[in-house]
């Protein structure tokens, strides 16, 4: 038995019939074919699947698609505007905040959540905010640099948010 789910993903209405047990990440990856959101553990521990659900960072592997019915979701594909990278994406590029790139979309969206709540985070604040997102490549230092870079850039040009 399938259920109809309506989610506004990156500003676009997405309506699909899915099994009630379908996870939000499966809805995004399989129904919407937005594969930038990755799965690393299926148990909410690694953060690779982090997306913004009504503006708040969630692990989309432990949210059911039906729970997100009627909500707005932002994925990594929705961050760049008119071909211009979001400052956090720029920061990750500038500061070598990624290597294999698998955890990167989740890291970037988690950072977006942080900067929306706390536009001038300390390095400790950044460490704390990224606590639920695992990276096995970078050792985090360049990721912290990247988020710091983005915060400074966004403070200078708030319109880029």
């Amino acid at each position, binding site marked *: 038995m399938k259920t109809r789910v309506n989610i506004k993903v990156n500003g676009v209405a997405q309506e699909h019939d899915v099994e009630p047990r379908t996870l939000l990440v499966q809805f995004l990856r399989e129904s919407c074919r937005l594969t930038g959101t990755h799965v690393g553990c299926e*148990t909410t521990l690694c953060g690779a699947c982090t997306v913004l659900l009504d503006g708040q960072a969630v692990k989309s592997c432990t949210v059911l698609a039906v729970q997100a019915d009627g909500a707005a979701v932002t994925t990594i594909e929705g961050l760049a505007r008119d071909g211009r990278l979001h400052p956090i994406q720029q920061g990750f590029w500038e500061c070598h905040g990624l290597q294999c790139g698998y955890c990167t979309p989740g890291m970037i969206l988690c950072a977006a959540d942080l900067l929306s709540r706390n536009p001038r985070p300390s390095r400790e604040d950044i460490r704390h905010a990224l606590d639920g997102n695992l990276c096995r490549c970078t050792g985090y230092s360049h990721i912290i640099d990247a988020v710091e870079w983005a915060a400074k850039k966004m403070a200078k040009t708030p319109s880029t948010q």
Partner: protein
Amino acid sequence: MATSDTKGYVGRALKRVEDPRLIQGKATYVDDLVLPGLLHMAVLRSPHAHARLNSITTDPARALEGVVGVFTGADLNKACGTIPCAALAPGQKVPPQTVLASARVYYVGHPVAVVVARDRAIARDALDLIEVDYDPLPAVTDPEKALEKDAPLTHPELGTNLAFTWSLATGDLEKAFAQADRVVKARMVHQRLIPMAIEPRGCVASWHAGEQSLTLWTSTQIPHLVRTLLPAMIGVPENKLRIVAPEVGGGFGSKLNLYAEEAIACHLAQRLGAPIKWIESRRENATSTIHGRDQVGEYEVAVKKDGTLLAIRSRTIADIGAYNQLLTPAIPTLTGSMLPGCYKLKALRMDIQGVYTNKMCTDAYRGAGRPEATYTIERLMDIVAAELGLDRVKLRLKNFPKPSEFPFGTASGLTYDSGNYQAALKKAQELAQWDKLLQQQAAARKAGRLFGIGLSTYVEICALGPSKMMSAGGWEWGCVRIEMSGKVTVITGATPHGQGQETTFAQITADRLGVPIEDVVVLRGDTAVAHYGRDTYGSRATVIGGTAILMCIDKIIAKARQLAAHQLKAREKDVVFKDGRFFAKGRPKHALTLATLAAESYVAKNIPKNWEPGLEASSFFEPPNCTYPFGTHIVAVEIDRDTGDIEIVKYVAVDDCGPQINPLLVEGQVQGGIAHSIGQALFERCVYDDNGQLLTGEFTDYPLPRARDIPEYKLGHTVTPSPSNPMGIKGVGEAGTIGATPAIANAVLDALAPLGVRHLDLPFTPEKVWRAIRAHEPPRR
């Protein structure tokens, strides 16, 4: 290569060309692939560490709507060959590793059956409907107990758990020990670790019935080795196989293997006539993808009272798990080769026993045998210093070879290419403000605080390696083509998966050819494009793969020079190549660009007689030796007496990987490597219980370091070129993981030294440290 006649991209901290696709969610990892008619495979795995497999009932699973087929060992083990190992020890006893279990299962996670279904959820549902009748048997999980007389046998048909014995003996050991003023002994456990790449393994196999050929997209570090090895497993010849490593989400050695699931997916794609996808779960990744380390050793150092090292004797047991994966036996033997570390020794003896247990196989995990060697020798140096009352820095300096002694022959028979261990140590001490740090420690100790300083001076072996050391070639292949438009296509047989060679190889190429870096594209990871390759592991890709590309470029420049001489009506030796332009000596205004010559080379109307059209070259680089990067890491820690919690308060690393092509990427490799060491030193330990159940199969129980666990680093470098390749580069992918663990361990044990703690085995969890503190200090009121 940033000489005066190039643009100088090499040596600059350039942003990566890989990143735009990765930061926008536009990259394609294997699970992102969808093919028409795609079916999904799921694997049923053994819940027992050792059991007789009496029967498998698959009918209820087959009956589930959407299930296409259920296959057991009886269906697949004849059709698929056994899993290859390329590094068996001489005389090793080897159990055949079939793709699915046959009469018995030998570890938790051992594949027993597979389901193929219309979608992934149905395939997983069907697993629950397969009934397996097991008779559990006694399991053995402790490699030392496995060698005891009445131990259960992992593979009863072998008659023993001892897989192999490997020994290395050089110099006059008896004499060295007889001359010693002191013999310092220690026992160390190198705990088992799980690589835990954030992207689990996975693959998609597609059979092309018309061509009788097969494409396998797989999350692997080694598409070329897979192409070499797969024909023996599935019967499809090498020239009918295309292997693609798309975007790969981390490997760290765990994807340096050919696994059962890849062969099964290929076989079933052919058998069922439909593409098959298999994606590993995190739990499967923990139980059924290779593990690392897991050695336990007894070590003895013969030393003069002035600190001169004479010899090391070691007896090591390596837990290799239930089977041999691609390089399993080679890991502990590499430990043996690197055991002398940075030091001169007169004699060495190492005896390794490889032991089968009912656990997942161990194999190459970041560092692959070198971290065990470095940890051992660097802990021993601190123990020797403490027992002889010597300064640990002076002890190290006393036993280093001098820079003038390179190439330096080690007691284990290796030849270190180049080194200046003294300079790296001095620089690290300066960066760490060593004397000030010692004062800080003295003040902290006076105040009753547990403050420790640790040091490690490491050397590692990279750029593996000369073909004589490897079982299937240690060269690397590259191809460079100047297209008709003048754009440059570089193809590498190395298969980077996050290390950034699309950028560094473009830097090398743009400099050497004198073209804008934007005009260079680097292709990798597809055997239909990169025909040959030995792939990425052992910190080899930049050194060997980069040199192969340099060789291609030099061939192209030589060929273009012939064409330029012809068109400029000059003698070939009078043609100058500068900034991407060719001109006759003294006539720079009448220059031909590389792009013009490229177009002319393909149009081929105005070319020298008997000159082959086109501007393309390929090369194999066979390295004459490995490279031996080195460095010094200095760490300061403070331990909370009440909780055993460890805080890293200072971290200084000076690494020497020769000239750096891109310092930003080198920094990334070093920081990432150190993070693995922080995990190994402080948290990570793969635990099986006595029945062989894996207790650390998820991130809840197997804690990777998180952002909050990482200190602020002070990084530096020295530059000692290698004579083994024209760029003098050495490799840096594993340095952090090799140098950092003993530095952290030495710092923690230095902090605990005033309490009388001599040694603790890793990881230093708060509980372990707290118990050690409690055991060594009088109870407080």
